[in-house]
C-alpha cells in the first residue's frame, strides 16, 4: 500500500509522534519521571538513527500525494531537528531537575513540537507548511511558559502566543492570496506560475512576513528577547535551533520551489531585512549584561547573516543557509547547554555576566566548552561558525551584494566583543564570592563535548557536507553556479 510506503519514508516523524503519544500516556498513568525521560530518549534515539540513515541513503522523493517530501533537503531538515531535540532533551532533563521544576509534560510537548517541525521542514505544499508551523508554534507557546510559577515565563508565553496568532493570520491570508493568484497550494505548481500581479505579490509578501516573524527577523523580532529570556534555558536552545531550522528549511524550500523565478526580485527586500537584522541584533546584544538575553539577541544577529544567504537567491546561497543551520545547531545548543549548567548551579537569575567571574577555572572543561561554542558563534576560524559565515558571505559576494557583505563582516567582527566579553569574565576576572559548581553529570558533559567536537570538526572539514547540500539543489530552477 502506498500509505505504508509513505509512512516508512516519513518514519522519523512517525516515530516521534508515536513516542509523544506514548510518553503522554505514561504521564497519565503516573509513571516516574525517570521512566518518562528514558522512554523519550529511546524514541528520539531511534528517530535520530532513522533520520541519519535517511540523510545518508534516501534519494529525494515526494510522498503523501506530493504534500511532503523525503530525502534531500527534507532528510537534512529532519536530521537537524531530531538531532537538536535529542540533545535538548538530555540537557533539559538535567536542567529542570536542577531548577527543581521537572514537569513530565515537557517531554510530550517537545515530541509533538518536533513532529510539527519535521512536517514543516519536509513540506511540499503550503497546507502542509501551515499544519507543521502551527503544530510547532502551539507547542512552543506552552513550552515557553512551562515553569508556571515563574512570572517572566508565563508573561513571555502569553506575548508569544498573541504575537504568534497575529502572524498566523498574515500567513493564512498570504496562502489565500497565492491560491487566488495561482490556483494551487502546491509549491512546484506555484513555482510554475510566472505572471506577477497585485494579488500574487500580496500573497508573497504576507507569506514572507509570517516567516520573518517565526525566524525573528527585524522588525518582527520584538517577541524574541522576551521569550528567549523567559523560557527555561534549554527550551530557548531548542527554539533557537530546531525551531529556527525547521522554519528556515521550509522557507528555503518555498523560495527554491515556489518562487525560483522571482529570486532576483526578492534580493532587495531580503538585503534590507538582513541589514536591519544584523545591525540591530548585534548592537543590542552588545549592551546586554544578561548572558541569556545576549544569546537571544545574538540569535537575531545570526538570522541576519542567514538572510544574506537568502538574499543571494542562488543555489550557493541556499546551501550556505542550510549549512549555517547545521553549524548553528551544534554551537548554539552547546552554548545554551553550558549557560544552563551554570544557571542551575545557583539560581534561575544567575545569568548576569558578572556572576561568571572566575568560573572558567572552577570546572575547566565547562569553561573550555563554552569558549569553543562562543568562538564558533563569533565566527573565529577552525570552527563550524567560521565556515558557515564564510559560505553565506561568499554566496553574497557571488551574487554581487558586496556592500551588504561588508556590513555583515563588520557586524560579525563587532559581535566578537560581546562573545569574548563572556570569556573575559570567565577567565580574567576574580570571582567575588566563593561559588562552588557541582560536578556535571557524565551524560551532560559528554553531550556537550560531542557538540564541541562536531563544531570543531565542521570547522576543519566542511567539504563533504557542503557538497551533499549542494546536491539537493541539482534540479533547482535557479540558475545554478558550480560549487
Amino acid at each position, binding site marked *: 500500500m502506498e500509505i505504508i510506503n509513505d509512512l516508512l519514508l516519513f518514519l522519523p516523524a512517525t516515530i516521534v509522534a508515536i513516542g509523544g503519544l506514548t510518553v503522554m500516556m505514561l504521564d497519565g498513568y503516573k509513571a516516574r519521571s525517570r521512566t518518562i525521560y528514558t522512554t523519550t530518549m529511546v524514541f528520539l534515539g531511534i528517530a535520530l538513527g532513522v533520520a541519519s540513515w535517511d540523510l545518508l541513503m534516501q534519494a529525494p522523493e515526494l510522498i503523501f500525494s506530493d504534500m511532503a517530501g523525503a530525502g534531500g533537503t527534507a532528510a537534512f531538515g529532519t536530521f537537524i531537528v531530531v538531532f537538536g531535540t535529542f540533545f535538548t532533551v538530555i540537557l533539559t532533563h538535567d536542567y529542570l531537575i536542577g531548577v527543581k521544576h521537572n514537569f513530565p509534560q515537557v517531554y510530550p510537548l517537545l515530541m509533538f513540537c518536533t513532529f510539527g517541525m519535521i512536517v514543516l521542514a519536509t513540506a511540499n505544499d503550503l497546507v502542509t507548511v501551515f499544519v507543521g508551523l502551527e503544530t510547532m508554534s502551539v507547542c512552543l507557546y506552552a513550552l515557553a511558559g512551562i515553569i508556571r510559577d515563574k512570572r517572566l515565563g508565563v508573561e513571555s508565553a502569553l506575548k508569544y502566543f498573541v504575537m504568534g496568532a497575529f502572524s498566523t493570520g498574515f500567513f493564512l491570508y498570504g496562502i489565500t492570496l497565492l491560491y487566488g493568484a495561482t490556483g494551487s497550494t502546491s509549491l512546484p505548481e506555484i513555482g510554475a506560475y510566472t505572471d506577477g500581479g497585485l494579488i500574487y505579490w*500580496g500573497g508573497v509578501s504576507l507569506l514572507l512576513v509570517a516567516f520573518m516573524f517565526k525566524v525573528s527577523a527585524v522588525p518582527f523580532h520584538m517577541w524574541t528577547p522576551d521569550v528567549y529570556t523567559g523560557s527555561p534555558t534549554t527550551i530557548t536552545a531548542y527554539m533557537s535551533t530546531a525551531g529556527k531550522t525547521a522554519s528556515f528549511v521550509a522557507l528555503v524550500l518555498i523560495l527554491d520551489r515556489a518562487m525560483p523565478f522571482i529570486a532576483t526580485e526578492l534580493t532587495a527586500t531580503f538585503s534590507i531585512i538582513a541589514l536591519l537584522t544584523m545591525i540591530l541584533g548585534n548592537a543590542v546584544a552588545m549592551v546586554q549584561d544578561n548572558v541569556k538575553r545576549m544569546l537571544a539577541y545574538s540569535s537575531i544577529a545570526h538570522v541576519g547573516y542567514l538572510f544574506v544567504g537568502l538574499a543571494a537567491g542562488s543555489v550557493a546561497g541556499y546551501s550556505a543557509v542550510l549549512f549555517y543551520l547545521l553549524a548553528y545547531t551544534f554551537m548554539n545548543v552547546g552554548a545554551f547547554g553550558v549557560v544552563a549548567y551554570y544557571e542551575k548551579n545557583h539560581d534561575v537569575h544567575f545569568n548576569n555576566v558578572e556572576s561568571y567571574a572566575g568560573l572558567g577555572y572552577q570546572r575547566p572543561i565547562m569553561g573550555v566548552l563554552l569558549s569553543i561554542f562562543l568562538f564558533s558563534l563569533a565566527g573565529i576560524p577552525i570552527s563550524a561558525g567560521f565556515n558557515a559565515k564564510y559560505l553565506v558571505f561568499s554566496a553574497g559576494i557571488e551574487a554581487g551584494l558586496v556592500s551588504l557583505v561588508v556590513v555583515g563582516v563588520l557586524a560579525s567582527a563587532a559581535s566578537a566583543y560581546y562573545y569574548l566579553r563572556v570569556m573575559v569574565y570567565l577567565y580574567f576576572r576574580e570571582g567575588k564570592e566563593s561559588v562552588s559548581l557541582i560536578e556535571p553529570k557524565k551524560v551532560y558533559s559528554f553531550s556537550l563535548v560531542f557538540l564541541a567536537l562536531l563544531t570543531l570538526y565542521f570547522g576543519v572539514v566542511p567539504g563533504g557536507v557542503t557538497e551533499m547540500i549542494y546536491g539537493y539543489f541539482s534540479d533547482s530552477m535557479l540558475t545554478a553556479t558550480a560549487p
Partner: protein
Amino acid sequence: MAEFVWLIVVIPLIGFLINGLLGLSSEGYRKQKSVIGWLATFAVFVPFLIAFQIFLEMNAGSEPVVVRLFTWIEAGSFTSDIAYRVDQLSILMALVVTGVGTLIHIYSMGYMKTDEGFYKFFAYLNLFIFAMLNLVMANNLLLLFLGWEGVGVCSYLLIGFWYKDMEKATAANKAFIYNRVGDFAFLVAMFLVFRTVGSLDFDVIFSNLHLFNGDIAFWVAVLMFIGATGKSAQIPLFVWLPDAMAGPTPVSALIHAATMVTSGIYLITRFSGLYMTSPEAMLLVAVIGGLTAIVAATIALTQYDIKKVLAYSTVSQLGFMFLALGSGGFVAAMFHVVTHAFFKACLFLGSGSVIHAMHHVEHELEHEGKHVHFDPQDMRNMGGLKEYMPSTYKTFLISTFAIAGIPVFSGFFSKDEILAYLFNAGLGEFGAVYYALWGLAVLTAFLTAFYMFRLTLTTFHGTFKLPGKFKGAENAAKYLHESPASMTAPLWILAALALVGGFMGVPEFFVTTFTSTDATVNWLYAWLSGVTVRAAIILPYGVKWTLVAIAIVVAVGATILAYRMYDNDKGEATDAAIRERFGSLYATWEDKYKFDEAYEAMIIRPGNRLADRVLAVFDVKILDGFVNAIGSIVQFFGSLLRFVQTGVINTYAIAFVVGVILIIGLLIF
C-alpha cells in the same frame, strides 16, 4: 597499504584527544597513569607499524602515492587539500618520528611517573607527533606549514611544561618568538611560490620548477632557509635552543634533538631541485651551517650543564647537516638526520637518566633531614657514575663514540659523507669558500669528539664528587641507582641503532675501490635517489680515502686527547688550564659570543623603547580612542534601541505592522 597513510596521522590525534579530554574532565582518569602512558605510546607505535608496513611494500623505484582526504580550503582559484604524500623521503621521516617517538614515550612513562601533569604531558607528546607527521607527510606547503606551526606550539607547551617556574615560561616564550621570525620568512616564501606557480601543491611545484628563474629561485630558497634557521636553530636564530632545555628531558630528546629541529633540513631536502638551481643560495646555506657548527662547538666546550652541552652539540650537528645541504649532499644530510636522531636521542635520554638519579639523591637527602641544594645537571657534581649506572654509562658511551665519528659507529659514516661532499663542492663554483668550510668542518669534528668525551669522562669516570663538595652530602653515593627498565630499555635500543645505523649508508667506494664494478651497498643513497637531486661526487679514489683517513685521525686523536686531559678527575683542572691558555677567546665562548646580549641591545631594548614611547601612545590615545568612540556610539545606539523594547505588547504589534508595510511596499511597488 599506502592508502591507509592517513591512519598514521590520525591515530596520534585520537590519542591526544582521549588523554587530553578525559584527563581534563575526570579526576579519576588522571590517576590511571599506566593507562594514559600506554595509550599514548600505542598511539605512536601503531602508526610506526603501519609506516613500517608501507615501507616494506615500497622499493627505491616506487612512484609517490598521494592520498587526498578532502578539500580543506577553497577560495576562488586557490584550493588546498588535506593530502598526504607517501614517497621514500616522507616514509623515512615518518619511521624516524614514530620509531624514536615510541621509544621516548616508553622512557617518559618512567621519567614523568611522579609528575602531576602526567596526562597533560602525554597528550602534548601525542599532539606533537601528530603535528610532526603532518609536517613530513604533507603534500602541499600549506599543510606542511600547519604541521610546522603545530610543532612550534607543542614545543612551546612542552618547554614551558613546568610553567610555574618563571624562567621556564620565559624560555618557552623565547623559543616561540624566535621561531616566529623564521616562520614569517617561510610564509613569504610560500607567497612567492604561489605567485610563481599558482599552487602550493608539491606535484605542481615540482613539475614547474622551470618557472622559478634566477632571482625568484634565489629568494624562495633563501626565505625558506631563513624559516629553517628558526626551526632548526641556526645562526642567527639559534639562541632559543639551549634555553629550550628547560623542558623535561624526554622533550629535549624528542623535539629538540631527534625530530622537530630537523624539519628545516627536511624542508630543504624536499625542495632540493629548487636549491640546485641557485648556487648562491646553496653557498649561503653552507656558510651559515659551517659558522653555526663551529660557534656552537666552541660554546659546548665551556659548558658545565650536562643538557646545555648536548644542546649546543645539537646546534653544531644541525650546522653539519646544513653544510651537507649547502654542498649538494641532500642524501648525506638526511643520513645525518637519521643517525643523529639515534645517538642524540640516546644521549639526551642518558642525561635524563643521570639527572633523574641526581634528583633522587637530592630528594633522599632531604628525606634524611639534610637540606643540600645542588644543581642536578651540573657535571662538576657528578663523576664516577659508571659504577652506579652501568646501563646508562654503556649506552651513553656508545652514542658518544657515534657522535665523535669513531669508525663503524653510525656517526662516522654520515659525517664522513658530509666532509666528502664539502670537499667535492670545492671543485665547483665558489671553490675556495667550500675548501675553507671543509677546514672548519674538520675542526668542528675534532671539537665535537673532544667536548663529548669531556662530558662523558667528567660525568661517568673518576670519583663521585658530590659528597666532597657539599656539607651533608657525605653519604650521597648510597642513594645513586640505575633508572628503571622502562628508561634503560629505550636507551639500549637507541644505542644499538647508534652503533649499527651507519650501515644503511656505507659509501660505495669502500667496495668499488676493490671490486672495480658498480656496487649497491649504499642503501640510503639508492632509496632516496628518486626523490632528491644531488651533486655528483667526482673525486678520485685516492682523495676519498685520504679524506676518510683525515676524519679518522681527527676523531681518534681528539678522543685520546680528551681521555688524557679529562680522565681521573682532572676535568676542572684541565678546564682552568684551557681557560688560561685561550684567554679572551675562551671568555667569548663562555659568553656564547654574546648573541643574547647583542639581541638585547640591538632589538629588544630599542623595541621596548619604541613600544613605550611611540606605539603605546599611539595605541592608547589614537587607536583606543577611535575604538572606544565606535564602541560608545554603538552602545548609545544599542541603549536607545533598548527603549524600543518596552515589554509592552502593543509596541510589538506596531513594529510588526510597520514591518508588514515595509515588506509589502518593497515587493509590490
